[in-house]
């Protein structure tokens, strides 16, 4: 700005005056343009913003006042001077009213002109600077407002509830989620809210607010806002310090941890179920041994053999259960290394039927099987798929009647390789069918009394099938038999 030369335009039809003034100003380090009539002047001074304009009042084509108006319209900050010999007080007033800086009577002395121009130029610089500052301030305010609204938007969009109280316990900020969690319909900024908050939250807040030597430590608690684990939240209260280190207030964050709690609950349910399932056979074995060893009971050798056999069965069952549990745990944790190979489901089913031959022959069961030719390959882990069919066919044998039959069929249907295994066994009631795939569920009735099992087999089957995007369907009639249909999707 400092080194910039002021740009001046002289609009005057009088050539001598134009050139004289131009020379004078150039020697005073002005940058000077000239226009020989009003129209050219308007064109030049509206097309470019001059710092200063000296306009002759009387020109043949258009009068100076009109030129002044046009220039001011285009560039309000151009400082304009009206110069004329035919000056009257009225025109002077009018010119200043229209925005001329001042009026210069002709003829003028160089000193007079320069004094006016310098004063005008100074005014222009001041005006420009103040406009710049004003604009800057406006921009900053805008930025600030934007920043604030952005922050508000962010806080309001948080899924976690957030609210802030000052050191008097008065609410200074909150977001909609906070209102939702603490279920306060009418909550007002500036209101003391400790008394209306859920007790546990108030306690945490009070702990920080009531302690003048607060440490910069976050306090947290889990609060069941709705009973029976319907809404459980984690509350975190953190002190907000002033720059000088004193306590300004407390920010509280409320996070919904209901889902996590539910998972935790299911997990602990599962653990207690496992514990029970493990403990019962152990108690049975221990009970048998106590009976055999108790001289008062005077058990016969036949009874003792029976009890020992039954103990062995229970222990065998226990080992199987632990193996099943380990399998489930590996599947859950996905630590099981899968070896994906192109498998022929028909061959695996046939292999499983052959493998279990001793079992079904022992019960006099007939197996009828039908395998579609040229079955598409299924990419999966051989051990897992074999396990799936061993559990299903094993059940078809275990829960079958003596001299019953099993129908095995493998075929394709749309995008699935379908395996259908039907038995003529004991079947199940609809209420049992509904719970069939739950861990540790075993159908209990007079038929199943003597059939051992872990209650985990079908749960494993379901997990395996679903892990390959497959599904399993059961159709059953109590005392008549069951049909398990396994769908495994293949890619064409």
């Amino acid at each position, binding site marked *: 700005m400092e080194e910039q030369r002021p740009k001046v335009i002289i609009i005057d039809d009088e050539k001598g005056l134009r050139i004289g003034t131009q020379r004078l100003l150039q020697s005073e380090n002005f940058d000077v343009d000239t226009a020989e009539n009003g129209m050219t002047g308007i064109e030049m001074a509206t097309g470019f913003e001059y710092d200063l304009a000296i306009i002759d009042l009387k020109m043949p084509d258009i009068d100076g006042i009109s030129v002044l108006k046009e220039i001011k319209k285009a560039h309000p900050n151009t400082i304009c001077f009206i110069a004329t010999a035919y000056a009257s007080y009225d025109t002077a007033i009018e010119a200043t009213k229209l925005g001329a800086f001042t009026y210069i009577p002709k003829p003028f002395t160089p000193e007079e002109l320069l004094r006016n121009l310098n004063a005008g130029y100074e005014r222009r610089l001041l005006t420009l600077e103040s406009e710049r500052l004003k604009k800057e301030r406006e921009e900053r305010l805008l930025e600030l407002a934007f920043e604030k609204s952005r922050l508000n938007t962010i806080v309001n969009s948080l899924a976690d509830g957030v609210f802030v109280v000052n050191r008097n316990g008065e609410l200074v900020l909150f977001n909609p989620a906070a209102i939702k969690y603490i279920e306060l319909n009418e909550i007002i900024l500036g209101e003391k809210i400790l008394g209306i908050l859920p007790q546990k939250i108030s306690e945490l807040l009070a702990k920080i607010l009531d302690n003048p030597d607060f440490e910069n430590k976050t306090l947290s608690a889990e609060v069941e806002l709705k009973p029976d684990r319907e809404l459980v939240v984690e509350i975190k209260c953190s002190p907000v310090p002033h720059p000088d280190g004193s306590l300004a207030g407390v920010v509280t964050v409320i996070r919904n941890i209901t889902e996590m709690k539910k998972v935790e609950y299911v997990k602990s349910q599962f653990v207690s179920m496992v514990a029970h399932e493990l403990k019962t056979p152990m108690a049975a074995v221990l009970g048998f041994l106590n009976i055999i060893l108790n001289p008062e009971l005077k058990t016969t050798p036949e009874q003792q053999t029976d009890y020992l056999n039954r103990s062995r069965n229970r222990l065998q069952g226990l080992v199987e259960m632990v193996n099943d549990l380990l399998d489930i745990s590996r599947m859950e944790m996905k630590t099981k290394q899968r070896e994906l190979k192109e498998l022929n489901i028909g061959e695996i089913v046939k292999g499983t039927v052959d493998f279990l031959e001793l079992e079904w022959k022992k019960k006099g069961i007939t197996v009828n099987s039908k395998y579609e030719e040229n079955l598409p390959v299924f990419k999966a882990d051989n051990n897992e798929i074999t396990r799936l069919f061993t559990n299903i066919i094993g059940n078809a044998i275990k829960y079958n009647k003596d001299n019953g039959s099993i129908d095995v069929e493998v075929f394709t249907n749309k995008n699935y390789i379908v395996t259908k295994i039907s038995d003529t066994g004991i079947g199940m009631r609809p209420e049992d069918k509904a719970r069939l795939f739950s861990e540790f569920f075993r159908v209990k009735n007079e038929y199943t*009394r003597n059939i051992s099992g872990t209650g985990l087999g079908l749960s494993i089957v379901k997990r395996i099938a679903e892990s390959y995007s497959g599904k399993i369907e059961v159709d059953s009639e109590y005392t008549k038999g069951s049909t398990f249909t396994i769908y495994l999707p293949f890619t064409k």
Partner: protein
Amino acid sequence: MTDTTNKPKKVLLVDDDYDLLEQNKMLLESKGYAVVTADSVDSAWKVFKEEKPDAAVLDLIMEEHDSGFILAHRIKRDAHGKTIPVFLLTSATMVTGMKFGITTGEEKEWINCDAWFNKPINIDELSTKLEECFETRKM
């Protein structure tokens, strides 16, 4: 011990584990009790109504986690049932560390049984407690 000159006391024993049912039946019989058994909550209720036992010994966890509790409550609400001792058997405490107690009024109200025993049962302890309960009820 039961008085042999009198009719033996009848105990309803309920457990869905057949091995444990058989063992406990044998143990109770060795102490001179007459034992009637059931393997589910529903069949137990039927046997209870028919046999009107002098005591009930119930497994805590059968079809559902709280089957034994529910059965105990049902028996305790029955006109005959509220006069007899009801014991619960559990395998939960040892493994889960869950604590059962019937010392406070609230616990007694909730659990609603006269005693509980860990599985496998110690028949001497159980029969002593049974006799104690019979004695108190006589008075």
